[in-house]
């Protein structure tokens, strides 16, 4: 395996980005920091000149005097490692981008990056304020794609991102790309998920340990997410959403775009529906992603067609029709309250449904979760 190594220049670049955080925030925050990927194309000197004209000399002087030992020591203390664009470990997919990060600081298993081809990775993005439909789809997509051997890339944010990670972490490989140092759990309430990914997955960032997030660092990390994967899937997003920045960046790099269709009346599905209208791949399940990335012919072994009792079948059909509470299912199917409860409980145990902590039911994507999930015919 290639060792995670980084040269001095690239490490200094990551330090510089952290030091320029507040300066870039001022010049890059027109439309929620969307200009930041352009700025990051610049060389060290030009970037300092543009972002911090008053302290240019001072900043460059400090940069020049940074010792490599100190930078490496900081990495070691934060249990992180680094690899730069000159090293073997650096993913080839990132080299496509003109604005690619010079160095990647990682925490977790570096082998995830070793020889990572872009068709092996899928980025799942979406709204922070997602509906239970979006969260469930994100979790299932994450789980099935990870189980099928793909690397699931996302950004650890609230909503869709966290669900995709949660789905993937138990089933296979997942990478979280952060807009702050990889040793900073942001948002803080996702600390336990962050820790899980550090232990069983990989957290990467272009910022050094301890760097705090700025508004401009999110579009910046989006460009890494877009470049890393062969396909970017939007699960739910409003029409003006940060997730659509990621898809724009991915489209610029010539990556595939996928979108999960949603109700046309739903504000949170306006983004993906718009992408679909513009020609993105329709993503209904993990198989659609695999078809688009790997080409047709790789199919999962079809699960045995379930043979359900009539009550269960009727209840399943009612949930699929959008009746989410036990009461609604009972009324729609004509079952008694007790019989509907029995049917829903069985369906949940069989893995066809999940129940939220508010007592509402949702259909899962996978016909037989819990068992072997998704095997590919070779």
């Amino acid at each position, binding site marked *: 395996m290639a060792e995670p190594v980084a040269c001095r220049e690239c490490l200094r670049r990551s330090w510089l980005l952290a030091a320029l955080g507040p300066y870039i925030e001022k010049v890059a925050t027109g439309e929620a920091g969307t200009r930041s990927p352009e700025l990051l194309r610049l060389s060290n000197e030009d970037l300092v000149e543009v972002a911090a004209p008053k302290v240019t000399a001072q900043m460059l002087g400090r940069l020049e005097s940074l010792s490599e030992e100190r930078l490496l020591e900081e990495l070691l203390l934060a249990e992180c490692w680094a690899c730069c664009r000159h090293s073997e470990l650096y993913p080839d997919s990132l080299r496509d981008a003109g604005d690619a990060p010079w160095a990647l600081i990682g925490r977790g298993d570096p082998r995830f990056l070793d020889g990572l081809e872009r068709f092996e990775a899928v980025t799942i993005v979406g709204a922070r304020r997602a509906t239970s439909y979006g969260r469930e789809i994100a979790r299932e997509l994450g789980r099935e794609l990870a189980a099928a051997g793909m690397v699931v890339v996302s950004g650890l944010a609230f909503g869709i991102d966290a669900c995709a990670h949660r789905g993937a972490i138990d089933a296979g490989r997942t990478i979280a790309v952060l807009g702050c140092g990889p040793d900073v759990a942001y948002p803080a309430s996702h600390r336990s998920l962050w820790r899980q990914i550090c232990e069983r997955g990989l957290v990467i960032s272009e910022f050094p340990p301890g760097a705090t997030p700025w508004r401009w660092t999110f579009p910046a990390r989006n460009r890494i997410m877009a470049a890393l994967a062969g396909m970017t899937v939007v699960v739910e997003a409003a029409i003006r959403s940060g997730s659509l920045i990621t898809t724009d960046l991915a489209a610029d790099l010539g990556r595939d775009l996928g979108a999960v269709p949603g109700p046309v009346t739903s504000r949170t599905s306006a983004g993906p529906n718009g992408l679909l209208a513009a020609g993105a791949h329709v993503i209904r399940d993990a198989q659609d992603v695999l078809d688009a990335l790997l080409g047709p012919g790789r199919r999962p072994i079809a699960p045995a067609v379930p043979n359900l009792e009539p009550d269960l079948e009727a209840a399943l059909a009612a949930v699929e029709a959008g009746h989410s509470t036990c*009461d609604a299912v009972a*009324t729609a199917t004509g079952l*008694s309250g007790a019989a509907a409860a029995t049917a829903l*409980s069985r369906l*949940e145990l069989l893995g066809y449904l999940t129940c939220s*902590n*508010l*007592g*509402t039911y949702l259909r899962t994507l996978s016909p037989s979760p819990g068992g072997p999930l998704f095997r590919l015919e070779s």
Partner: protein
Amino acid sequence: MLATARTFTLDGISARPVRVEVDVHRGLPNFTIVGLPDAAVREARERVRAALVNCGFEFPLRRIVVNLAPASLRKAGPGMDLAIAAALLSASGQLEWEGLARVALAGELALDGSTRAVQGALAMAEAAREGGAEAIVLPAENGPEAALAEGIGVVPVEALGQLPALVTGEWDPPRPGPLPLQLDPPPGAPDLADLRGQPHLRHALEVAAAGGHSVLMVGPPGAGKSLAAGRLPSILPPLSLGEALEVARIASACGSLGTGLPAGRPFRAPHHTISAPGLVGGGAPPRPGEVTRAHRGVLFLDELCEFRRDALEALRAPLESGEVLISRVGGQRSLPCRFMLVAAANPCPCGRGEADPDCCCSPYEVQRYQGKLSGALADRIDILAAVRQPSAAEIGGAPGEPSAAVRERVRSARERQEERLGPGRCNAEMTPGEARACALSSGAGALLAELYARQRLSGRAHDRALRLARTIADLEGVEAIGEEQMAQALQMRRRDHG
């Protein structure tokens, strides 16, 4: 001269005996009350003085000292007026009452000498009996209430002026008839038939009533959560005589007995701005809170997520132990509170729920709001019922099954539980040991084991599912818990996380 009389002060819901000692002797005219009186007791001076004069007695212009013993106990309320007046009359020689020490007196005096009702008459009558008194003299309004206590004479008086006739035996009022205890909800009370459609919600309420399980209803505003909760007392089994007396004692101490109080099991629905002492009781001397007022009945917390966190936290221990312990300087008081908890909540602060495109709550707001649903209190809740807006067809449809029919099933289920667990107990109170000893069919056992393994149920959730399944089996009259009942219990149980 010295005279003593017996009276009571209310402490929580029980009456503590107080001895009133009145000494009248020569000196500058003065009237003092000692022995830790509160403001209301101290004001008894003015009421007693006016009442004596207006009833034709003479107020002695001498030095009067009233001592309330034991001196360490804080006395509260106006209920000692009658005893002070009687002892004063006896001490000043206006009333030759040698039996004064053998009776107890309680009552507030009006300025014209007529008596006014006091709180806690039932507890005082019982305390008088325990203290060996022959009879208790109290205001006529409190007569029926005090007559609920057996084994003690009850003498209702309407005015201070009646005392001389009572002492000489010229007037001997008959013992008043006891207040009728109403074990059932009165006719015309809210009926479950008003809940149309919503079969699962009805079923969840029936199971909750049958096993005494606590329920959480989650759904948008106007979906019928409050309506359903208000109908719960009508399907609970009737009170037993002993329970009715406990309820009456609490109502009496709160001064709400026989004042148009709805009969049957109590139903309390405090507003969500209530403080922790208001909910569980507190103050000095301790006053019963809403949980004690809901004893043997239903405590309904509407908008559960809006309640103050400290108030909800304070509910935990009482829910578990069935009593509130209040520690004060004078010692620890225990107030009973075995109630059924019914709570209702909206899915998010705006109430629409995330599926509604108009919902404008941020994820953080929703998380914080629902945080109260997963706190320590939620751990004590057995049943989760998701409520939705009933359809037009349901609202316009036929009325549901009436309460009487549901109550019959609930009653027989409770009888089965009492046979198994002992009198007065229900499935919700089963210990983990008892719950695990319940007979399970092999199918039910396999179902529970599978869920336990797959969803990583906690031990507590495991036992909760067993209790619920046992209640459903009791409702259906089944001996061993079957697969069907276990499946329903697993559906109904409160979820720990999404």
